[in-house]
């Protein structure tokens, strides 16, 4: 069995190994990971332009102050407030996604599903912290994309006051691509 190595090709440092090694990660939790920067209005509005979402909760300061106590941010951004900067003078941080550290043979990833619960809104100025946990690693499965394993994680997201704002159960497929273009099937 080859020594585990790391790959930067995905933009994440993937850990390599076999399924037996991967199973040992089930139940492991990450350290607390504090976002590089606070939740900000610029990115919130930038993201609203992506889906052309005009919800005044994200746009109308006066209305949002009345109803929510301040501008809130789209729930779709929950997972992204802890994305690391792509360059940092102190050295780029690793992704807070624990799934990347699970040793497996696949050299690439694709997200296949999310199941997210929201307990309260995320406000401009909050600084989000995440703790991630490995819930499951599937046996090897083949799909139209290739062969690999599904990794299920639970991310717990907290605001500056330490309150749980959301929980995301994420399923990610870690695989070796078939090569060439996948056939169009379901």
């Amino acid at each position, binding site marked *: 069995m080859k020594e585990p190595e790391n790959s930067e090709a995905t933009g994440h440092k993937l850990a390599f190994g076999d399924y037996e090694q991967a199973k040992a990660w089930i139940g492991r939790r990450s350290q607390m990971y504090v976002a590089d920067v606070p939740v900000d209005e610029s990115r919130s509005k930038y993201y609203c332009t992506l889906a052309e979402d005009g919800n005044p909760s994200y746009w109308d300061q006066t209305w949002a102050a009345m109803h929510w106590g301040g501008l809130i941010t789209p729930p779709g951004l929950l997972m*992204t407030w802890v*994305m690391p900067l*792509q360059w940092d003078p102190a050295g780029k941080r690793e992704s807070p996604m624990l799934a990347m550290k699970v040793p497996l043979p696949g050299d690439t990833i694709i997200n296949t599903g999310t199941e997210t619960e*929201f307990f309260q809104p995320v406000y401009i100025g909050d600084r989000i912290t995440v703790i991630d946990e490995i819930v499951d690693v599937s046996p090897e499965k083949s799909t139209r994309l290739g062969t690999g394993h599904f990794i299920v994680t639970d991310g717990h997201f907290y605001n500056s006051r330490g309150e749980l704002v959301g929980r995301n159960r994420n399923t990610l497929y870690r695989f070796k691509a*078939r090569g060439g273009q996948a056939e169009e099937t379901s």
Partner: protein
Amino acid sequence: MKQTDQRPGWRDYPQKYWQQVEDGEQLPGLELPIDYKRIVLNAASTWDWFPGHHNPEYARAQGQENIYASTILFHGVVDRLVTDWAGPRAFIVRRGIRMQQSVYPGDTLSAQGQVTRRYRDDAGSALADIEIELRTERGVCVPATVTARLPEQGDVE
């Protein structure tokens, strides 16, 4: 809401109340043309720089046709479908999505939703479950379900 009408800069927005929600009700659909700019905006606004979302060579080596939309874009479209229909005082309590097909530049992404259940949970919250399908020209790409909490008529804000 009348008591707030006098505030400077105040305007109100259409809001659906939980009592007005009907089982089987169709949500107004929406369409979003997907071009290169939107896929790049997807990466930029979400800070998701996984190369499949901005590097065509990498995406093709993964078995994709081209760079593709990320999870977070689908979250935004699903959530917007629900709050456009329900109004800004609705709160998304739960959202599940499954990504079955990728979405590429040149596609038109459309979203349809239907209320499957109006109910109260054990805590008495006024909820509605909504079943959603995101589609492209190739068919359903992302089925989703949302549970939203809506304000009730007679609520004092």
